């Protein structure tokens, strides 16, 4: 129910940072599980981020200063929210535009029809 194909997972890994940055740009602040659910919701369950891939990405972006964190007490436990820093906002724009360019180039290649006569 929660698993997408291994091949898709491999593709996802390469663009995980861009996905996280874009989601945080749209949603101000989010916690880890919320990000996985949001991706699932947007893609109608077609894509599912694995926790083992998401957290290292979030932690790396946090360590690099691209994301900052804040804690809120929810149901008696601390919830860690991630949000974009000033650098993060700039990086989000460039990461998303790079990914869009890449996808459009990929589309060109995939849409190529054999022209050998």
């Amino acid at each position, binding site marked *: 129910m929660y698993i997408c194909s291994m091949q898709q997972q491999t593709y996802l890994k390469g663009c995980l940072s861009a996905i996280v940055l874009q989601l945080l740009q749209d949603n101000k602040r989010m916690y880890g599980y919320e990000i996985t659910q949001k991706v699932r919701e947007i893609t109608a369950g077609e894509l599912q981020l694995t926790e*083992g891939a998401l957290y290292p990405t979030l932690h790396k972006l946090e360590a690099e200063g691209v994301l900052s964190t804040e804690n809120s007490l929810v149901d008696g436990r601390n919830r860690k929210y991630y949000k974009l820093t000033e650098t993060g906002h700039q990086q989000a724009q460039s990461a998303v535009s790079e990914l869009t360019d890449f996808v459009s180039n990929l589309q060109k290649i995939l849409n190529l029809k054999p022209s050998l006569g």
Partner: protein
Amino acid sequence: MKLTTEQVDLISKEIIEGGIKYQDLYEELLDHYILAIEDRISHGQTFGEAFEEVHTDFINYKRPLSVWDRYDSGGKPKFGLVKLQDEYQDNLTEEISKKHWQIMKNYFRWPTIVTSLLVGLLTFQFAYLVPRQYFKWVIAICVFAPIFLVLPQFIYALWLYISRRRRFFISLKGHAINLRLTFILGIGQMVFRVPFSDNYSILKQGPLSLVAAITCFYIAYSLSFYQLYRERFKVNRA
């Protein structure tokens, strides 16, 4: 459906047994496990099935091989929660250290360099005007100021730990602060007592210009630590 206290305790036990030893990462994982399991239970799974599924996603995580691993574990890939923690710790330590030196370097870039040069010139002037022992106090203040800065946060964490309101005393950010503080304390000790020498002290017998340069370094280090602390270490609560 909310999980029972016993179920939450079981999750907590598994996370701790997985090798997690920092409070911030422990809290984040516990929150994720609880949410993910509650969600799966609401979709018809049992607690056992839901836990297994969530746990597998984490323990199957394979950390990318780093150069150091070749010496550390014979180049074998690493798995599990503890590897997630190792990677987080390595990233944070490396980036914090990089950021700290970057702040220090900024003191020598335009326009901050003007202030840095003025402070440097004043220190060199003072070196010839005031007795040497005053520099000992300036350096001691610069060495201990960062410690006093982080002390309230450490005392608060200790109090929460003693009153059993948190599982671990130290957090990953706390660990990164410790490394920065250990560095300044380590080199601070070298200034007061040169290693392998019983009766030579830079402050007492070293050239005045060197004493002034060391003092400048400590002022810069102390100020940069304050800046780093404000930017990266303060725990924000919403």
